């Protein structure tokens, strides 16, 4: 239900219709145009947030939207699964669950109940780079949820009695999300193969043998290290003004003392020169698929200026039914039932660009892979045209106009951006930067990323290859 994590290429399972929507979301993450300006204008300004910083260093971001008297209240911690010590994979996500297990004032399980009995909804999510908690409530309940969220920022009290049944829950969560579905299992394996050394290769939810041994002490240690106001961002979207929000933020969050927080020390990937293949055969699979992942720069690691051109490239290759890959593989050659390419630049370290397809009946995986490769090769060798770039940019700016028409979308976009090292100014300048992308830049980015030979190819196949 929430937007993509840092490296969230479109899932295997989806046909392009859903995929296109996911793509739009990923970019609309960055995009929108205010009510007052023409919809297709490439001017600075997306969400028009206000921001201020509390005396303890906690950043506050506000997007006012007064259509309905409700608000989204989110706290983002700049810590995620990639910040875990080795050997305790899954602890960031486990702690996310345990944050609902009580303080002096709010007993275990009470947090969500109180939000609900006040007509609100709440939840939380973990990525490699951040962990976020949110409540959607009527505007007159904002103070209530702020008080509770601030309370658990420093007063979490865990007991074995609540911690260990919850560990069983996350193990069930892993079974349900990953182990029960072959498409998700291959995704995990591709990821683990792409990132040889960096923790992005470790699943957010954790490896099963390590999840089974996670302890209360490890969760508490992670909490004490990272959950500090100076490592958090408060993002509020909805029917509230800065004048109303400021005193509340000072009152509830401002009084929590700042603490030293570890630097994010992430290992870097070693040079890898080998192309790799991951093959998952499973008796359950009736519809095979292929994907290929290349390492790509994120906004934060983008030294060459590829991040915006790669988004335009993604729109040209995969932005709906007139995109290159769909037109080539599905419409013209009729060898695929779906085809996609995805790239999300919101990541603290590097990210990946991925392309994939599912074969039409009677088409072998060899033939499909060759056709996908041919389209990529054509792109790298011949590039895109100025006209393709112009059309793609126009579409992206237009689609972006919808992004502000949401209660939660702006808060999610801004929170994820800040937690992965972007500034509000970066987000607000998204239309201008997209508009400035040239065909030469797209081609250079395509060559640099897709020209790499150290990619990972994942094949999801039936147990017996019946020639599909």
């Amino acid at each position, binding site marked *: 239900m929430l937007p993509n994590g840092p490296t969230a290429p479109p899932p295997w399972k989806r046909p392009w219709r859903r995929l296109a929507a996911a793509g739009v979301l990923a970019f609309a993450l960055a995009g929108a145009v205010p009510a007052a300006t023409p919809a297709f204008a490439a001017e600075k300004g997306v969400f028009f947030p206000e921001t201020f910083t509390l005396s303890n260093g906690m950043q506050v971001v506000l997007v006012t939207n007064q259509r309905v008297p409700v608000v989204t209240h989110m706290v983002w911690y700049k810590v995620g699964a990639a910040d875990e010590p080795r050997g305790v994979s899954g602890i960031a996500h486990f702690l996310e669950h345990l944050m609902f297990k009580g303080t002096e004032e709010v007993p275990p399980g009470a947090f*969500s*109940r109180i939000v*609900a009995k006040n007509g609100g909804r709440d939840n939380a999510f973990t990525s490699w780079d951040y962990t976020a908690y949110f409540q959607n*409530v009527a505007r007159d309940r904002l103070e209530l949820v702020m008080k509770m969220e601030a309370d658990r920022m420093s007063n979490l009290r865990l007991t074995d009695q609540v911690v260990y049944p919850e560990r069983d829950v996350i193990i*069930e969560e892993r079974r349900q999300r990953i182990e029960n579905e072959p498409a998700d299992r291959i995704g995990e394996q591709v990821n683990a193969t792409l990132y040889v050394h960096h923790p992005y290769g470790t699943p957010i939810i954790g490896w099963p043998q390590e999840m089974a041994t996670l302890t209360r002490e490890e969760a508490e240690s992670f909490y004490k290290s990272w959950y500090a106001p100076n490592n958090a961002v408060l993002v509020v979207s909805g029917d509230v003004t800065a004048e109303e929000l400021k005193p509340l933020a000072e009152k509830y969050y401002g009084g929590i003392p700042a603490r030293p927080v570890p630097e994010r020390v992430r290992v870097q990937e070693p040079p890898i020169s080998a192309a790799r293949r991951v093959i998952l055969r499973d008796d359950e699979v009736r519809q095979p698929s292929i994907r290929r992942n290349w390492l790509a720069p994120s906004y934060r690691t983008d030294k060459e200026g590829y991040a915006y051109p790669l988004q335009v490239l993604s729109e040209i290759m995969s932005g709906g039914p007139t995109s290159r890959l769909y037109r080539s593989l599905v419409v013209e050659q009729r060898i695929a039932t779906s085809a996609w390419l995805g790239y999300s630049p919101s990541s603290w370290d590097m990210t990946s660009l991925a392309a994939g397809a599912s074969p039409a009946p009677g088409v072998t995986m060899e033939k499909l892979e060759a056709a996908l490769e041919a389209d990529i090769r054509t792109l790298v060798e011949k590039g895109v045209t100025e006209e393709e770039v112009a059309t793609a940019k126009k579409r992206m700016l237009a689609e972006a106009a919808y992004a502000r028409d949401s209660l939660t979308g702006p808060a999610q976009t801004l929170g994820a951006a800040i937690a992965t090292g972007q500034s509000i100014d970066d987000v607000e300048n998204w239309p201008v930067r997209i508009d400035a992308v040239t065909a030469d830049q797209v081609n250079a980015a395509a060559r640099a990323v897709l020209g790499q030979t150290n990619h990972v190819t994942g094949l999801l196949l039936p147990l017996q290859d019946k020639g599909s």
Partner: protein
Amino acid sequence: MIARFVPNRAILSVLTLLLTAFAVAAPAAAIEIKRVVSPGGIEAWLVEDHKVPIIALEWAFEGAGASDPKGKEGLANLAARTLDEGAGPYDSQAFAARLQDNAIALGYDAGRDGFGGSLRTLSDRRDEAFELTRLSLAEPRFDAEAVERMRAAVLSSLRRDQADPNYVGRRLFYSTAYPGHPYGDEIRGTLESLPTITPDDLRGFVKAGFGRDRLVVAAAGDISPEDLGRALDHVFGGLPATSANAAIPDVEPKGLGETLVATRPTAQTVMLMGQPGLKRSDPDWYAATVMNYVLGGGGFGSRLMEEVREKRGLSYGVYSYLIPMDHSALVMAGGNTVNAKAGQALDIMRQEWKRMAEQGVTEEELADAKTYLTGSFPLQLGSTQAIARILLQVKRDKLGIDYLDRRDAFINGVTQADVQRVAKRLLDPNQLLTVLVGRPEGVTATRTIDGGS
């Protein structure tokens, strides 16, 4: 992205803290719904809002789509997939380009009880958006190439789903509960039926189903009532006055009391159970809504989540829900658990069924359910399209244009005795149709299906 379990709703119940807070503000009442009747006599409801330059239009043809002809299962769904694949002078690629270049989202969806359409456009592109919508309804091309391509995509999605134990469970449940009835069919059709559908079948479906007599429309956003009236005539005015949909018979679910196990080599068992529920028009609807919220509709803190997940760590998610259909109704529950604990989890779910049937809800549970169900409703009004969708649903359910103002009173009027009555009426743990997919241990099956589907 990994998150805590996200069921449809959040919760109920007690606690010490902070606010004693009842009577949450009800901002839904602040929304003004206008009845718009076009010069040509087409009615729509509108929430006019010029703060965002976006228009959302949602519509449905009641009754269309529910019943595909025998052997042509999947017809309505294939039509939905192909309607926006070229219309009037534009072939598939040209039509898609016009939509994309103007950032217009147009889509169709075949449901059990109706055929839905959805349009979202920036208001300065509305003329183009309305014209493309009109073309898709009045002059869809169903070119052979587009039909074949969409057919292949649907077949591919059907094959893909066969690896999903949740899907296998749902299919087995519905085909067992509604054998021989359209509700028991896979709405996307089957590997056998889809190849038989021709472009002429699709044209016939559109011609028969898209009549103004079955049309329900709602809109929201940056458009005046006058402009909407003109748009309604433009988009829908050329459709036939009447439609010729086959009547669907009412049906009661079958297989009650059975426990089916589909053996699949999965790590977890998928559990799905249900029995007759009640229709949206039932006088006990709101009592049942409260009951369901307490039982398993509320996410964290519901009785099912508390007993199965919180206390015992047996599942990531377990939930209950009501399914009101036009010709039948269900009360359902489901969840996933490790194979070895499936029997235990199932026993607990049935016990909770029994406890609710025998004891109903406490005064506190009732109060908390009311504050949640009334207070959370406005959260659904977060976008222009969401507002239009809710209006359409209210209109389809014939709840009245002032329903949003009255909804809280219906919920707040529910008593403990009402919940007790409806729980006793609906819930019987011995009459559940239970479907398990996986390798469940500790479960006595009345029938085992190897391979599942």
